[in-house]
């Protein structure tokens, strides 16, 4: 077991929000068959939302580009899915939530409480949803207010997922910490776009979206490195992690755990593979615990 913000994780790999998290059955499968130490749901909001027209995700040579547009069935419908996930997943189930204001975040959090999530992850970082996500998450005052408001309505741990599409991610991280965040999660996708040169049309239905996968890993490592130095609370690293080597690198930058998203494209059991790889590495290098290498790069000067 691996302890993080009061949750007991089976291992330090976590399913990232927005990936295989629309249904309880899917979350349970990622935990049981995929080997994730914890799972995070699709981001849930106050009203049902269909998301952007397709194409909403394409694979590029360097990673993945997506603009889903926060599709979700609303908290009132999703709490049943949370229950399904929790009954058999046997790992912590984190509810990712979004809203356009602190009040909406609080409404969604309270509305999901009957589904008994183990923690909340606040999506203040989606790069392609007007009025939501990064639209609120690039303003430190809003991030602090939203975090504080969600902390008020529940006693559950609150993680705040940050956007890299700002000039100083640590300023946003500090705002989340000031609002009472138990951890920050970095990073959400990096703004991106692709154009079909035969027709001139932007490929994504939303015209532009967010980049994930191998291309963003160095961006994520740098953000995690800076946040680790700037904050007291744990940093959860996400962005381009698909192997145990990626995970170890992220942990050495300062991550207390890693999230894995796009890499499920290759194989669902990527979580088991990464956590086994981390264990083998720790053994080979003579480390007792993951905690021994968190932020190790900061000591190498």
């Amino acid at each position, binding site marked *: 077991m691996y302890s993080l913000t009061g949750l007991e994780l089976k291992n330090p790999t976590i399913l990232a929000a927005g990936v295989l998290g629309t249904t309880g059955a899917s979350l349970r499968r990622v935990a049981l068959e995929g080997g994730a130490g914890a799972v995070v749901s699709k981001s849930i909001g106050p009203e049902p939302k269909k998301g952007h027209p397709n194409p909403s995700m394409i694979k590029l040579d360097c990673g993945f580009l*997506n603009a889903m547009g926060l599709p979700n*069935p609303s908290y009132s419908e999703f709490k049943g899915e949370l229950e399904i996930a929790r009954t058999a997943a046997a790992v912590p189930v984190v509810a990712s939530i979004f809203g356009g204001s602190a009040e909406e975040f609080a409404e969604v959090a309270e509305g999901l409480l009957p589904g008994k999530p183990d923690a909340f992850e606040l999506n203040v970082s989606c790069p392609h949803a007007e009025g939501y996500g990064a639209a609120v998450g690039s303003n430190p005052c809003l991030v602090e207010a939203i975090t504080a408001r969600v902390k008020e309505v529940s006693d559950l741990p609150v993680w705040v997922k940050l956007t890299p599409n700002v000039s100083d991610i640590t300023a946003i991280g500090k705002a989340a910490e000031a609002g009472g965040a138990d951890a920050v999660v970095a990073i959400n996708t990096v703004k991106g776009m692709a154009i079909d040169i035969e027709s001139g049309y932007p490929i994504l239905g939303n015209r532009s979206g967010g980049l994930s996968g191998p291309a963003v890993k160095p961006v994520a490592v740098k953000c995690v490195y800076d946040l680790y130095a700037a904050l007291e609370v744990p940093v959860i690293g996400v962005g381009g992690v698909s192997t145990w080597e990626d995970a170890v690198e992220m942990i050495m930058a300062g991550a207390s755990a890693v999230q894995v998203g796009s890499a499920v494209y290759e194989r669902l059991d990527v979580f088991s593979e990464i956590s086994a790889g981390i264990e083998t590495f720790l053994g080979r290098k003579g480390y007792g615990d993951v905690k021994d290498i968190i932020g190790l790069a900061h000591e190498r000067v």
Partner: protein
Amino acid sequence: MRPLNVNIEGIIEESPSTRTFVFDHCFEAAEPGQFVMVWARGVDEVPMGLSSRNSITVQKVGEATSKLFELKIGDSFGLRGPYGHGFTLPSPGEKVLIVAGGVGVAPLAPYAEACQASGAEVRTILGARSASELVFKERFSEAGLLDITTDDGTEGTKGFVTMILEGLDASEYGKIAVCGPEPMMAAVFNVLKGKGEVERAEFSLHRYFKCAIGVCGACCLDPYGLRVCKDGPVFSGEQLLDSEFGKYTRDASGRRVKI
């Protein structure tokens, strides 16, 4: 992959509401039952089974398909794929039963041809609302035996495909492949279940797709979380036992909608 740009080389009116678009790219390695994401630029992108290695067969049902129906020979659209798993091919000499309904014929016509080419004996039950909606009659009859049913009795047996199916000894067939509207497939599923033959039958499912590459989770089936786009779209009857199949689907937001 980025969408391929394909140019339309031919348009065939299959029925008043169905057209085949033949394009200038050949998916050489595609298995019958695999699908492509068809991008009507500026409108939407929707999944469709390939009706041959270089064609799709489209029923006009929504915005994206209406946009495709405006296209002419020489126009182009985008295609990603082929994705997912297709139907299992038979061994030489094996008997294959195909049950096709409506535009569900699209992936089954190339399957019937591939079965015949591999030396299997093919029998098809083809159903539609009326005679004018029967698609690929010739392709199925050239591949083997063909039984036709129409809801209004304008051709073949009046009624549903299940009326023919009930009279057959399903145990004779090594492979059973089904595609069509979900209520029809669910009825076929129940008949085969009654005969004790449903586990090995294969059904091609349709769900709302977003990413189409197994990442987003929009098309996951209850209760095991199987992804229609990546683990399917063709599933064995065994995988579908006690599942949401025939009961409900989900809309683009993820809300359950009754079938």
